[in-house]
């Protein structure tokens, strides 16, 4: 086994990544080689030191307690809010419509449209009387 390959295998072994059979045969190999056995011992000891340095009981406890609150989505919207919004919209729409119909304004129609309506014998609606100053058409023209 090449030195680099065996060290990669050693890492995999101590990380528990080798399949059981492979791990067993690797351990046998290590036990027959004092240099390999010493290296494994050193590596395991280093791992312990590194974990001790970076993992900390006190850190774990304080961090678990001090997990900062995160901004969560608010709870469900109460039912009355969309209903009230819909009612407001209907009200606004209705009022604006009413104002545009009965508030003294008249329909905007084109002279050309009225003339062509008369030409084809249609009776223009009463409200479609044109008061343009150029042309005045009767509200109900007889044929």
């Amino acid at each position: 086994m090449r030195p680099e390959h065996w060290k990669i295998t050693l890492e995999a072994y101590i990380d528990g990544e080798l399949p059981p059979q492979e791990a067993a045969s690797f351990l046998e190999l290590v036990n027959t080689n004092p240099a390999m056995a010493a290296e494994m011992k050193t590596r395991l000891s280093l791992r312990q030191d590194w974990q001790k340095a970076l993992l900390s009981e006190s850190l774990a406890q304080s961090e678990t307690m001090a997990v900062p609150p995160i901004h969560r989505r608010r709870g469900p919207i109460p039912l009355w809010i969309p209903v009230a919004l819909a009612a407001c919209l209907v009200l606004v729409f209705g009022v604006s419509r009413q104002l545009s119909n009965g508030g003294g304004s008249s329909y905007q129609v084109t002279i050309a449209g009225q003339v062509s309506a008369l030409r084809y014998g249609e009776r223009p609606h009463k409200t479609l009387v044109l008061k343009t100053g150029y042309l005045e058409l009767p509200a109900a023209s007889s044929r």
Partner: protein
Amino acid sequence: MLAISARQETTALDRLMAEHAVGVFRYLCAMVGNGDSARDLRQDTFLKLQHQADHAGKALVYTVARNCALDYLRRQRSRNRFESTTDPETLPPTSTLPAHNPDHILQSKQLRQDILQALATMPEEQRTVFHLSEIEGVPYHDIATILEVSPGTIASRKHHAVVKLRKFLRSRGHAS
């Protein structure tokens, strides 16, 4: 319906945070080398996970954490500044084991700082592999998913990271 869904989401997020908040924080510390930034990034991580907390496993949690760290590092790089690990005040508290021996505490603190400094000199992917495998015990398969490489590549990167770390620590007078 909405209320139930929101409640489930919250519960799943709480579970996720209880399981991974500490590990993610440590990982982010190793990635960015600054405790305060790591705290902010952890918050970002869980914010991003809140809508998929139900089905988030270790791999997804660390993938999101890594992306947050990478975004942060990219922003830092654009400012041409990397927050070094030398400020002990901003780092998480060191190990208190064994608690009664000040020499051990000091040694452990020094070792922690040196490890973090060594990690800061490694390429980001090596740093991720080392920390997740060695410290958090994440399986190679999950790290491979996070980094989108094969488990064999993870084994090789882990080995190279360990070699670099040992060399660095030896130069600082630690046993390795």
